[in-house]
């Protein structure tokens, strides 16, 4: 038997989480370094996955399969296609930056307490989330996927509820209340989504008799497994609902601004750049593959919801007074683009959506982490409390601007490529929806540049006049992200090469072909 690479990639951060949690209370710094090393080692494993993966090979590669719960036909089945590989790489790439950015976020305020070890807990929870996210991307058994999709809520709940920004305008008491409200809201939304999905998972089992994605899809394709139209639709809705909560899609989005606002910036990145991607990923992998007909049936409604998300999220971002809430609503707008690309059912749309997931992860990380550095300096999340930062901290302002430009999809930076692919992929099939979505680019420029103008330009506010510029650790976090944004902006081919064959498969699952042009002018 060959080395179980996929299991190892998920198990390493899981074991790392346990080890980090076990570090004695006094050795906080050791716990941080351990977490960083584990996350880097996981990244190394992810790179091995990336290298071993053959884009033109079988659909699922590096597969592992073991019987698990024989009574229900549950098998521990793992395998990756190009889409999963790209997202595993993104996850493994971002976690070290999240760890490094959150280096001091969980330092105890006073060193009195011995039993409570917040630092160890914080980093252990981050690694636990990483492990579960990675295995969710790998699972090709619906049941295994479901378990980790749900289990991920537990560490996330504690990360949101247990750790927040240091300073708070209404004092620590109020902050704790708001944090736990945000954590509970996050939990309940996702739990409800999960319960509905659970019903659909059981329903699927009843119909199909097993949980294997490949087997069910195969059986559906060659007609041995017949599903009544209404059954398929109900099951699809059950799955889709859970993913739409996670993604999040309008109108199920309201947990996200609360969660991102109350958690520390690295955890906010963990939510929007990593965990939420499981939702959009699952739409591609499970909804389209298991329920192709129902997916096509629901497409018009989903596209409309996606466009509403794009415009609505952007408009609300414009109206925010809190930096983190602004980024949260911007993310809602971006998730609208991802869902739009998936359900446009064109090669450009789906490749674009996958690329979008990767690029959005990197760009949001860059913007949000710099915002976190800014907030930690002034102790306020309110935009109005800043002004003229550019003058005192030019490097911080410059990196913030680049993160913002990535968020508004400036051509030359990575998000432009994916956003344009999604738009063009949508436009070829649904011109009107494509045009409306395109106006999102004006709104994106508006909320980004207004944020930059209000915080970074103008006369220097007295409260920020002594603000230090980015420190070495912070530069180490931001600089690689910026380099990646530029690199993938001018040369996205390494990612599209991996993703395209997988998208081709998905397109054939739903039996859709790209629309043909009016004139064949291309050579």
């Amino acid at each position, binding site marked *: 038997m060959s080395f179980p690479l996929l299991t190892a990639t998920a198990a390493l951060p899981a074991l790392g989480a346990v080890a980090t949690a076990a570090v004695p209370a006094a050795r906080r710094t050791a716990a941080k370094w351990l977490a960083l090393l584990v996350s880097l080692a996981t990244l190394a494993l992810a790179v091995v996955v990336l290298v071993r993966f053959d884009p033109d090979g079988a659909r699922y590669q590096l597969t592992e399969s073991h019987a698990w719960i024989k009574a*229900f036909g549950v098998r521990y089945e793992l395998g990756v296609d190009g889409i999963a590989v790209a997202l595993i790489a993104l996850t493994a790439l971002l976690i070290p930056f999240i760890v490094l950015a959150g280096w001091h976020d969980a330092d105890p305020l006073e060193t009195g307490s011995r039993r409570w070890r917040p630092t160890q807990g914080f980093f252990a929870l981050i690694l636990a989330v990483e492990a579960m996210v990675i295995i969710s991307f790998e699972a090709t058994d619906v049941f295994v996927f479901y378990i980790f999709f*749900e289990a991920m809520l*537990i560490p996330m*709940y504690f990360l949101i*509820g247990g750790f927040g920004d240091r300073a708070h305008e209404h004092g620590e008491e109020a902050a704790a*209340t708001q944090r*736990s409200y945000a954590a*509970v809201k996050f*939990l*309940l939304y996702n*739990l*409800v989504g*999960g319960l509905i999905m*659970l019903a659909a998972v*059981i329903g699927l*089992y*009843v119909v199909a008799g097993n949980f294997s994605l490949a087997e069910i899809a195969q059986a559906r394709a060659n007609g041995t497994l017949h599903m009544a139209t209404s059954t398929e639709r109900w099951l699809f809705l059950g799955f889709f609902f859970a993913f739409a909560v996670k993604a999040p899609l*309008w109108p199920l*989005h*309201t947990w996200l601004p609360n969660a991102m606002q109350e958690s520390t910036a690295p955890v906010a990145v963990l939510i929007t750049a990593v965990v939420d991607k499981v939702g959009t990923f699952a739409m591609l992998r499970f909804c389209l593959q298991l329920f192709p007909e129902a997916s096509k049936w629901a497409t018009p409604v989903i596209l409309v919801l996606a466009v509403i998300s794009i415009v*609505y999220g952007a*408009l*609300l971002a*414009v*109206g*925010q007074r809190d930096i983190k809430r602004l980024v949260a609503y911007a993310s809602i707008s971006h998730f609208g683009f991802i869902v739009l690309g998936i359900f446009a059912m064109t*090669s*450009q749309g789906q490749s674009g959506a996958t690329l979008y997931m990767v690029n959005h992860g990197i760009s949001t990380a860059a913007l949000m982490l710099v915002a976190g550095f800014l907030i930690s300096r002034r102790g306020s999340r309110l935009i109005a409390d800043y002004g*003229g930062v*550019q*003058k005192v901290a030019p490097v911080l302002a*410059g990196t913030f601007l680049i993160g913002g430009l990535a968020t508004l999809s*400036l*051509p*030359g930076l990575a998000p432009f*490529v994916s956003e*344009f*692919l999604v*738009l*063009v992929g949508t*436009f*070829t099939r649904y011109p009107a929806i494509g045009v409306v979505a*395109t106006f999102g*680019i004006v709104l994106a*420029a508006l909320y980004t*540049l207004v944020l930059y*103008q209000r915080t970074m*330009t103008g*006369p220097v506010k007295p409260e920020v006049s002594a603000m230090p510029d980015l420190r070495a650790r912070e530069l180490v976090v931001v600089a690689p992200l910026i380099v990646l944004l530029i690199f993938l902006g001018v040369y*996205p*081919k390494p990612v*599209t090469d991996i993703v*395209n064959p997988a998208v081709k498969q998905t397109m054939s699952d739903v039996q859709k072909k*790209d629309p*043909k*042009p*009016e*004139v064949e*002018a*291309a050579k």
Partner: protein
Amino acid sequence: MEKLIALLIAAPLLGAAVLLVGGRRLDRVGHWIGTLLSTASFVIGLVLFAGLLGRNAEHRTLIQHLWTWVPVESFQADVTFRLDQLSMTFVLLITGVGSLIHLYSVGYMAHDERRRRFFGYLNLFLAAMLLLVLADNYLLLYVGWEGVGLASYLLIGFWQHKPSAATAAKKAFLVNRVGDVGLSIAIMLLFTTFGTFAFGPVLDHAGSASEGKLTAIALMLLLAACGKSAQVPLQSWLGDAMEGPTPVSALIHAATMVTAGVYLIVRSAAVFNAAPDAQLVVTVVGAVTLLFGAIVGCAKDDIKKALAGSTMSQIGYMVLAAGLGPVGYVFAIMHLVTHGFFKAGLFLGAGSVMHGMNDEVDMRKYGGLRTYMPVTFVTFGLGYLAIIGFPGLSGFFSKDKIIEAAFAKGGTEGWILGGAALLGAAITAFYMTRVMLMTFFGEERWRSRPTRSPEAPSAEPAAEHQGEHAEPHPHESPKVMTIPMIVLAVGSVFGGAFFSVGDRFLHWLEPVTGHSEGDSPLSAATVTGATMVCLVAGVAIAWAQYGRKPVPAVAPRGSLLTRAARRDLYQDDLNHVVLVRGGEHLTRSLVYVDHTLVDGVVNGTAAGFGGLSGRLRRLQNGFARSYAVSMFGGAALLVAATLLMRAV
């Protein structure tokens, strides 16, 4: 030889990277690094130009393929450059004028502590602008298109500690983004129509697509052009853009970037030729803008804003010419080049005046400066003669051709467009004479100012903290600034004649753009005569108003039209009422709706379904155990339900 094309872009891009990442240790040499790399790009341009001249007219298109950029099934975008006569013309204009303005900025920005960064941005601009004109497909052009927008944003807001500069920068970017929507949709339409958006196949097959599609594509390209080139209805950002340092106004907001829209239309000639309805719209936009800009230029007391109005107006001429089709393409580009010379020269002259006048921009506080800054006076004066179309100078040749072509459109349209162009020529003569008289002639109004007008516009920050009340001591600028002015003045004087003798420019550009002689109802001599009459009338009226009588230090109330023109024909008031205020209401109410309605309904529904609100309250007390219980409950439910299903 095509291997050199990428170097054109690489040189200034390298400069931008080095200067912006290099940090403070480059502060002392940064401006020279920037100037050197800009000049290097110009020299490479000259080498390539010589290479093109050595070839037959039909073989002057060079293609350089670098790498595959975005490959997704039939959607194929490459990083490929195309150097032909059209892009070559732009390359020389951009790098030539660009290098001169780099040199000028060495002196102009000498006392700015962030000069290194300024040169980094200028280099970034050059790289993006060159990418724009060298791209071989529309998507790559888009990268340059927004790249110049970014550079423009950074440079307008260069003095970003001033709220007005930061606001102007943001406004420019946003208005341009509206235009970018047009470019985005145009590319998508090209893709659905032709299956590609590379210049070669699209322009070769343009004729075989349906006219409806082509009209839509052309109109979307026009929208993009309106944004970048400040044409009505997306003109409102250009006046505010004068908040940037003056060299920026000269390079980006006069000579090069704002002409990108004209480039886009001329480059897409094959599409426009097959969409006559769209062409008509292009000419109307051009004609309206040329009058709009000219009228605004008449009323401004801020020398840079007067010149900005003029820029808008002159680009209106180019757009009008481009809308006329093969009759006008060559002349649109010819006017673009000559305008690049004289408008850049005029702006540099204005900067030189401001440099000697404590950064004052209000022309009512100038006067009689010709003796104090003779070089500036002479170079500015030559630029002035060129722009109003004084016989023999650049503007005379290029503008006259456009007016002729407008009449040649034929029919009522021809008379209207030609009439507008003629009227524009008269107004141009008026406002430029006004600038000239108010600045260099008349009383020395900067001496002993008894009252300051309460809201004196000041574009440069130095005015805020230095010499507020001190009387300025006008002086000539240093050589590093005057030499570029002299070079540009030479271009303004001889450029038009050089291009026109033996129809040199026409023969050069025709293989790319095509050309046809129009069928004008008026003879060339008649048009020239009429233009001269307009010119003399404009100058005479200005002389009567500003030359014979003293210029009041505080602007008189003025007629209804003057007051409207001073407020840019109420463009911002309109935007404010419709977009800003409406938008604020919309976002504010949406924030409310999201907080109460959407959140409330979803929460409420959830609560209604599962009695979750009770659990919510308990969980809010922080009992993590109850979560564990609910998870356990869920798992138990799962097992039970599955067993049940199996049993059934």
